């Protein structure tokens, strides 16, 4: 092997290593925050005490204090796991959307999922109608939100029979549907009772409070499937970014890949939103922050965005649990923190990444 080639290999290996290190750092932060989050909350339970409770539970020992056990095991632990899963899902969804649509403002809700879910929830809460008639209460809201949130993506898939699934088409179709749904939701909220109105609004803001051992397996399933599919396509995303013509010449079916990713992200986000409402900014800023350190290679951007998204969300939720007199929904915190961070990113961002 000549000197030139071996030094290239060496350089390349270091280059890859730097990216891997960053990813590991993100994952570590997420795990650390996960570990700490169990001791955050308005009810005073110390760090060691909360772990004592968890370990006792795993060993099958009867809890000494039922209330504390309930709080740590039924409230905080599921909520922390949900934060990791949801943050990862939103982060990876955002990265994939931005790369696929070559648009820095894209996020997982660009497929219209948010407006669909809000409408579904509003229909369940205000009209008391569920797509599966026998369901009521929280189940009804979740089912409605899920199916309604997929309608915009379905419409885009249908339109794709007649128009090519270019980034522009996807974004415009998403916006069009979003307006229709938002208008309908507003109409419903006009005729709603004050109680229902408040409930819809609070649901929309985005909260991890509804996490429970019952619904975590579902969310995790959606997120894991979503991550696998997107990561598998991350190389194709790189190639897609070079233009459809190049992509085809390298053996990548541009239109079909985009459609596949669109459907995947729609399902992933729908599976999340149905349980949490619309938690904003995580899917938008996680990829941007990762890009500053890792560049735009999707093979690393995508998983790192998942890791950073998880870290961001769980930190935000720790803050949310302690904020104000009663705690705040995490959606409020991500909005408060996300806005300024996004502006800071703008200052640092290499605009060439988007040309």
């Amino acid at each position: 092997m000549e000197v030139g080639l071996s030094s290239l290999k060496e350089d390349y290996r270091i280059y890859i290593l730097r990216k891997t290190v960053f990813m590991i750092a993100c994952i570590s932060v997420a795990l650390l925050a996960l570990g700490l989050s169990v001791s955050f909350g308005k009810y005073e339970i110390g760090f060691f005490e909360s772990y004592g409770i968890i370990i006792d539970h795993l060993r099958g020992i009867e809890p000494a204090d039922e209330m504390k056990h309930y709080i740590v095991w039924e409230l905080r632990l599921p909520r922390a796991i949900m934060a990791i899963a949801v943050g990862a899902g939103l982060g990876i969804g955002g990265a994939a959307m931005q790369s696929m649509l070559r648009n820095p403002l894209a996020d997982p809700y660009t497929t219209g999922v948010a407006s669909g879910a809000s409408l579904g929830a509003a229909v369940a809460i205000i009209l008391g109608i569920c797509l599966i008639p026998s369901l009521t209460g929280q189940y009804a809201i979740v089912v409605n939100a899920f199916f309604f949130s997929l309608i915009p993506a379905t419409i885009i898939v249908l339109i794709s029979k007649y128009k090519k699934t270019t980034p522009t088409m996807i974004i415009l179709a998403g916006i069009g549907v979003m307006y229709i749904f938002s208008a309908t939701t507003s109409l419903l909220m006009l005729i709603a009772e004050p109680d229902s109105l408040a409930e819809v609004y609070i649901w929309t803001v985005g909260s991890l409070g509804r996490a429970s051992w019952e619904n975590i397996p579902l969310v995790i399933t959606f997120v894991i499937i979503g991550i696998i599919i997107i990561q598998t396509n991350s190389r194709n995303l790189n190639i897609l970014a070079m233009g459809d013509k190049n992509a085809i010449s390298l053996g990548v079916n541009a239109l079909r890949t985009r459609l596949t990713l669109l459907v995947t992200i729609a399902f992933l986000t729908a599976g999340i939103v149905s349980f949490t409402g619309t938690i904003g900014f995580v899917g938008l800023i996680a990829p941007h922050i990762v890009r500053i350190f890792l560049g735009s290679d999707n093979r690393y951007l995508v998983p790192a965005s998942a890791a950073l998204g998880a870290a961001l969300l769980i930190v935000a939720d720790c803050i949310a649990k302690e904020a104000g007199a009663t705690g705040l929904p995490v959606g409020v915190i991500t909005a408060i923190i996300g806005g300024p961070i996004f502006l800071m990113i703008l200052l640092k961002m290499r605009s060439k990444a988007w040309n």
Partner: protein
Amino acid sequence: MLINIEGLEFAYKSTPVLNNITLNVDGPQFISIIGPNGVGKSTLIHCLNKILSPTKGVVSIDGKNVNDYTLKELAKKVGYVPYTSTDIFPLTVVDTVLMGRHPHSRWKSIDNDLEIVYDTLKLMKIEHLAMRSSDELSAGQKQKVILSRGLVQQPRILLLDEPTSNLDIKHQMEVTRILKGLCKEKGIIVVMISHDLNIAAKYADQIIMMHEGGIFAVGSPADVITEKNIKVVYEVESKIIIDEGRPHIILRDEPVEIDGSIDVEFKGRTESRTSITTPV
């Protein structure tokens, strides 16, 4: 390897672009496609690698209809170097060129791929740029990167759409020479669209001259590039000189003299008032 084109037609909505093209290419050679703007050169190329689907006619590669190939199978045989480099992504040069290995490689890029990339970069004399970000390069360097990406694909047929438009004459000749060499060494068919008639004339084995959506003339450079053909297809007066068996085109036009001057400071001394006339 074979390229067979039978009765190829293509139209954008209702605007016809290509009509009734029949062409057979057999065996490794360097082909240059020339013709005026908008005559359908790029469209023809795009029909060969499934970027576009012909409205009529059949395209076969190695005896198999192009439509029967999957995109990936076809990409293993047919490489493509596009016209513009505006779609270049802010990846490192290595990563950009590595993408060309996509049709051949598995999940992780293996050392073998890196070797191929390195060899190609060396061939293009840009191996020193390997870890630089692609979007920070000059236009000429970018073009070489895109070329490299096409070459690492190790195709049997390489389609190029004006691959040297941003290069200076030294590098133009360098690249074209490399492509010609590949024909011989690796036995591939090179199909290159070119606006530079002299370069085409100097290196191509075969010239395809297109006119009004169809093929006007095919043959060796000397046969195709004639004053009469140029007059008909390009509507331009010219004079052809044969040098080393290859035609060279000298353009003819009425000269117009305009008097103007430029003051120039050379290193260390000033030249006073040099008059420069703008040549035709």
